[in-house]
């Protein structure tokens, strides 16, 4: 029961952050691909920097062990990402932002979005055995992390990632990486 309450509360904060970042709006998602508004990237990367520092520090302190690390199988991860980007640019959402947008009362999120995910999930579940074993067998590294793969100290990598992110944020904010938008 406690674990469900935690899930519900964390879900509320998760959906809240998606709403406040503006990601529950079609134009915010598609404009990152038009390179006119980088909020999606800024949101994702700052979230990654904070959470990387958090989980690696907590693990070093012995407070947590990592849950199942998402598996790396290069061809499938990449193809999946490529196909996912198509869906994102067309619909202007991803599964999480669509649910949060639905909570805001947007019917173009609530109805075609949730129905589409259900249909997609059914199609995937029914074709899983035809598709997944073959794709995931190619260049499969299992539940690996970059520090393990390259045999480097994770904190070195986290620091590097944080510096790259801050540099990118600086470029986006100061040097005017925002392309002029003809549609505003």
């Amino acid at each position, binding site marked *: 029961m406690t674990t469900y309450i935690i899930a519900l509360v964390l879900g509320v904060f998760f959906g809240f952050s998606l709403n406040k970042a503006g990601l529950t709006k079609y134009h915010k998602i598609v404009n990152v691909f038009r390179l006119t508004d980088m909020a999606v990237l800024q949101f994702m990367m700052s979230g990654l920097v904070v959470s990387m520092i958090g989980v690696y520090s907590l693990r070093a302190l012995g407070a947590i062990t990592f849950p199942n690390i998402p598996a790396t199988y290069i061809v499938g991860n990449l193809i999946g990402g490529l*196909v996912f980007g198509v869906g994102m640019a067309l619909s202007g959402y991803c599964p999480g932002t669509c649910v949060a947008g639905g909570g805001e009362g947007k019917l173009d999120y609530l109805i075609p979005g949730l129905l589409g995910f259900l249909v997609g999930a059914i199609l995937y579940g029914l074709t899983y055995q035809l598709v997944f074993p073959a794709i995931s067998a190619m260049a499969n590294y299992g539940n690996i992390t970059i520090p393990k793969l390259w045999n480097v100290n994770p904190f070195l990598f986290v620091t590097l990632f944080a510096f790259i992110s801050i540099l990118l944020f600086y470029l986006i904010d100061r040097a005017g990486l925002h392309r002029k938008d003809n549609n505003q």
Partner: protein
Amino acid sequence: MKKMIDYIKKEIWSPYVAGILLGVVGVLAVWLSDNLLGASGAFENIAGSVGKAIAPNLFDNLYFNFIMPPGLTWGVVLLIGVFFGGMLGAATSGTLMWGKKGSANSDAQWKRIFGPQIWKRWAIAFIGAIILEYAAGIAGGCTSGLAIAGGMLLAPAAFLFIAGMFASGIVIARLVYGKRY
């Protein structure tokens, strides 16, 4: 204090402030309940529940029995929370759309580019959503379950996924927007 309340009420926060909140939520999920954030997986659980109720024989396969079994999983409860989180966020800025005119085609930029027809928005969004969920299955997660949750653990899979997502997203946005890109 008043300044903080005023900030919370803003419709759009700095993406960095919202991102920090996202990061903290991602860490707490692991710390408090040994789980990873995610969204697409929960739809697989829900699809399994729906499918097994309607056509039990068809859905009696390896995937819906063992890989993504149906039921009220941690991820499904998280997703219910996300729904109310979006609602709460919009409520604090007074931008809730429930019962409002325009809630069926909610984005001004969409309407300016593609017109006000609701069927058009819904048809493209529906197809997009099918593609999203299927792709998340192949990749091993979506923007939350793979890009954020996998990225924070430094799984190479997450960065491959993000690279693919931006590459094709840019191409499709160019195609869809044409001269107006």
